């Protein structure tokens, strides 16, 4: 078996008295789409932030392709791409400039051809020289995905990329995710659209109040609960966990 692309060992994250992640261990393997599901506040974004460098775990270790995200952060950050949950854009720069700058920040020599190719892939080539603030919400979201890909990451995190996005764009984004996986990129995504996770993901992780309730391949999970949808399985697990917490 290939070594995991991502390995989290006993990761905990505390904010004062609040525990956002509790002794979480997880492995993600090359070329798979791993869907991380859970209600709001479950710790999905916190985990992604700890892996990508936006936060630092209180305990435990995280490795990307065998490199520690704290001690070898320069290496791991070159291997990882992040599409953040919140749309952000720099009002000073155009999409083309934003991509060129992001390449440089990621330690890759800015390459105009690569930037233009990404703009074309994400249907932004007509807006390449417009100020980013004039782009529609969907275009800004696509620009975020393009920015996350400028350095050719081996592991891509998509933190609720379809939140507030219309159906057409959602389908486009998921098609792009499929294409990326086909090109060899490992993808970890979070989404509230469970049916989409069911359609796309190879493996599912369900997180609740900082604890991983389940990590299993989609196929075996659906087989074990024959006749039931992933959404039904998810809701049952969350309700049971809520019951345990309440008791």
């Amino acid at each position: 078996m290939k070594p995991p692309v991502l390995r989290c060992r006993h990761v905990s994250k505390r904010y004062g008295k609040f525990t956002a992640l509790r002794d979480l261990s997880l492995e993600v393997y090359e070329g798979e789409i791993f869907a991380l599901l859970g209600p709001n506040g479950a710790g999905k974004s916190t985990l992604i932030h700890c892996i990508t460098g936006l936060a630092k775990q209180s305990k435990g270790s995280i490795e990307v392709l065998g490199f520690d995200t704290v001690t070898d952060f320069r290496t791991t950050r070159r291997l990882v791409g992040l599409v953040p949950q919140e749309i952000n854009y720099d009002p000073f720069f155009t999409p083309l400039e934003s991509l060129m700058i992001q390449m440089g920040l990621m330690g890759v020599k800015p390459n105009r051809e690569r930037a233009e190719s990404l703009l074309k892939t994400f249907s932004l080539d007509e807006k390449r020289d417009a100020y980013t603030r004039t782009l529609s919400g969907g275009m800004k979201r696509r620009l975020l995905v393009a920015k996350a890909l400028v350095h050719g990451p081996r592991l891509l995190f998509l933190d609720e990329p379809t939140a507030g996005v219309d159906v057409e764009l959602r389908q486009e984004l998921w098609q792009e995710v499929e294409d990326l996986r086909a090109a060899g990129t490992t993808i970890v995504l979070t989404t509230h659209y469970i049916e989409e996770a069911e359609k796309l993901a190879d493996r599912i992780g369900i997180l609740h109040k900082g604890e991983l309730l389940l990590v299993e391949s989609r196929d075996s999970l659906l087989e074990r609960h024959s006749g039931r949808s992933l959404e039904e399985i998810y809701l049952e697990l969350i309700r049971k966990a809520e019951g345990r917490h309440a008791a």
Partner: protein
Amino acid sequence: MSAIALKTLFLKEIRRFSKVWLQTVLSPLVTTSLYFLVFGVALGSRLREISGVPYIQFVVPGLVMMTMVRDAFLNTSSSLFQSKINGTITDVLVAPIGAFEMLVAYVGAAMLRAFLVGTLVYLVALTFTYFPLHHVGWILFFAIFVTATLALLGMVAALWAEKFDHLAIFPNFVLLPLAFLGGVFYSIDLLPEPWHTVSLFNPLLYMVNGLRYGFLGVADVTPEASAAVVLLSFAVVLAVASALLRSGYNLRS
């Protein structure tokens, strides 16, 4: 260290202030030139010499330093704070960029803007009066270390601030009063006690007088004393800014 990332962040910061040059370059140039016209040209003709030099010459180093102090601070503080507010700081935080590269890039770009505006103010002054360069070495020393110190202070302010009002405290309630009371327009020898002694506790006094010595060869305090205060200020702010960036204070949760 990634040289490409460092260069990119540095150039990005330069492009950021260049894109709004009316606000970042022309506006301080106009404001300072107005000070120069009012205090140096209009009132200066009625005032006697100060420290043995014509008043119009006396005020120019102070105005140059006041502009550089303000612009060095504003460049880092506004850029970093806006990135925090609009979320684009994420682009830097997920990149293989350490605290050292962030410091060098942000501070380097702020120093460049401050030098640019300071030089333009000096050139405007030259159109009104002959202006000597008494000691170029001291001019460069104070220009470099003062702008670096204020750029670092701007980073500290941006990291600490959680709203725009927090950020406005520094230029409006700290830097401007300290600059005005730091001998930009007068020599502290003109002040009665205890104000003369009180003025000696103002670090901006040493910054202004250090540059004034470099230009004119006269100052209220020796260039060595000014250099010592500037270096101490630089070391303190560098230590604080480095520690905050390394810990990810208000950047990484």
